[in-house]
């Protein structure tokens, strides 16, 4: 945002898109407040809106610089929607996405500000699109089959730097960083295996030197023996570039391995958020506990300690009253059917959405 003129700064400030920050919030990179993303459901001849799918229904969390933040949950819980809303591929219905940034004022002083990505228009969003990059799940469909690998990695560079040439060296460097070589530049995606394509996707995400990478199920489509390679690569790159990751996955073992802090989602809500160790060793929300107990251990002598979950995930079109988990919860009481529990801090850094945290 160095090119922002002071006048622009004031304009943004007036429209409440930008807030000045005191130096206390040094570590925070992104702060999400009460974010909601709804999808309208239309029906009838006149395409009238008949209801909303509340994919993300009021989530709040913040992520520090250099952190690996894991987002886990089952299919349809809204974890990918959060990822896409943060980069504004999807439009948030309400809520704030504060991105912490430094801005150069006219007198060359730096001012820490937080910018509400949810309110920016297309043009204002541009600089942040290079700072926040995404890695997609399916390496077979997220690369353009008509582009060479070089073009794929170069495209974000051309778009964001405006330069047409001089990018080739950067592309070579990036390919080497992700464990591929210069000779791959002129080849096409179909010539590569899934693991290699995912490496290309990672190189593309790194090309703009981002501060935040949102990885949406980056290893789910890969073979087991290749998964480990990509996970290790992502960890190495994090050490090297100090980027922040939001790692979205349904695979709890993978998330535990890579993430330092974890949020568990269910039906568009965050049920529990906290340090990885805490979540895995001492889950406070019954849903987290059941979810973890469903993961097969990979030890043939230690099976069946599971508490299988009753019933099915309700539709996010008609969510249950009260706590969204109560129809399936083993310890649900009367209050759970009526009142939606608050998302409260139970221990330091551990937020839980439950009337009876730790009772199960």
């Amino acid at each position: 945002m160095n090119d922002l003129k002071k006048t622009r700064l004031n304009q943004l400030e007036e429209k409440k898109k930008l807030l000045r920050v005191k130096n206390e919030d040094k570590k925070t990179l992104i702060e999400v407040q009460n974010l909601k993303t709804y999808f309208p459901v239309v029906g009838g001849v006149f395409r009238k809106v008949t209801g909303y799918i509340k994919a993300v229904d009021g989530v709040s969390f913040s992520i520090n610089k250099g952190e690996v933040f894991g987002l886990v949950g089952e299919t349809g819980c809204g974890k990918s929607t959060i990822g896409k809303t943060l980069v504004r591929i999807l439009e948030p219905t309400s809520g704030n996405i504060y991105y912490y940034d430094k801005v150069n004022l006219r007198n060359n002083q730096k001012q820490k500000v937080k910018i509400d990505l949810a309110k920016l228009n297309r043009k204002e969003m541009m600089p942040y699109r290079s700072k926040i990059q995404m890695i997609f799940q399916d390496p077979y469909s997220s690369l353009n089959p008509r582009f060479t690998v070089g073009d794929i990695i170069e495209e974000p560079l051309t778009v964001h730097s405006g330069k047409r040439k001089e990018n080739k060296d950067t592309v070579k460097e990036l390919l080497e960083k992700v464990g591929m070589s210069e000779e791959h530049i002129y080849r096409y995606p179909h010539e590569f295996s899934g693991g290699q394509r995912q490496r290309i996707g990672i190189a593309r995400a790194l090309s703009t030197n981002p501060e935040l990478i949102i990885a949406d199920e980056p290893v789910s489509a890969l073979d087991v023996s290749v998964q480990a390679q990509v996970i290790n690569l992502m960890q190495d790159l994090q050490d090297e570039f100090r980027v922040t990751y939001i790692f979205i996955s349904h695979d709890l073992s993978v998330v535990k391995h890579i993430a330092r802090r974890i949020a568990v989602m269910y039906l568009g809500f965050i049920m529990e958020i906290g340090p990885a160790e805490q979540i895995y060793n001492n889950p406070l929300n019954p849903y987290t506990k059941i979810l973890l107990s469903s993961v097969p251990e990979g030890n043939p002598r230690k099976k069946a300690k599971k508490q299988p979950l009753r019933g099915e995930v309700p539709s996010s079109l008609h969510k249950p009253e009260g706590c969204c988990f109560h129809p399936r919860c083993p310890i649900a009481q009367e209050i759970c059917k009526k009142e939606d529990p608050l998302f409260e801090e139970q221990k330091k850094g551990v937020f839980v959405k439950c009337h009876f945290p730790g009772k199960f």
Partner: protein
Amino acid sequence: MAKKEQKELLKVENLKTHFMIEGKKAQAVDGIDLKVFEGEFFGIVGESGSGKSVTALSILRLIPDPPGKISNGKIFFRNRDLLNLSWEDMRKIRGNEISMIFQEPMTSLNPLFTIGFQIMEPLMVHRNMDKKEAKAASIEMLRKVGISSPELRVDDYPHQFSGGMRQRVMIAIALSCDPSLLIADEPTTALDVTVQAQILELMTEIKNKRKDSAIILITHDLAVIAETCDRVMVMYCGKIQEVASTINLFENPLHPYTKGLMASIPSLTRKKKRLNVIKGNVPGILSFPPGCPFHPRCEYRMPICEEAVPELLKIEKGHFVRCHLYSHKGKQE
């Protein structure tokens, strides 16, 4: 696991299946020998392209010909050679004595027929039931696989069911004729962990109920194998690499591929800073390496691995491995 007098249910001998792809021969299954006993939960584990699904389809003779062809081998099911049966006799076995659960519950149900009809169909074909009886039986099946209010849901269409429920319906269809052998091809891969736990429990329950039947579970997930199976076969590039009891395989894996696979999986309980890695990629079906197919990725590679395909060696009772590292130890089998 080792019960007395285990009766052989299925015996496959030197099965070879290939596909013709663009004029080239792709050997998807290359000499598989396996035995499945009554009352057994048998696992086949391998990555994509290892030939595990083709093995299953070959057993049921569901390989599309052309381009595929079962070129060699014998498949004995209750001492009948399936490969010599007429098409008509084979039809009587499919869905009746051997049935299969497919990977994608989303696509393997016909969207134009009700759930009830799809469960009734095998009953009417194989058991000569009339519609009324079949419907009653299908409601009973739905109840067995844990679908609530089955009387109402029996007339629903597949799109009204969630993924986990569709897989339950698939299981209900597969079990409707009370088969002796159930082949489940990645039954939980498309499902969430909580639903996976439910389905695996259901399958274990089914197996425990009928002592003379067996289940073959095909998966890429070793943890699922650990949870359910008695015996495991590890496949890579169309060949058996290791066969052992589940406990033996997990506590004493012999093949470098099995070892590597186990070390590369992150675990909930063990803590590790870095994952071990098997370098390289799974070779494509048209470019299986000569010699031991795993040699380009193997840490313990020796000159002989590039030239000769190792034999499947017996290391101890019930534990077989295909690797040159053990050639001095094991007996050829």
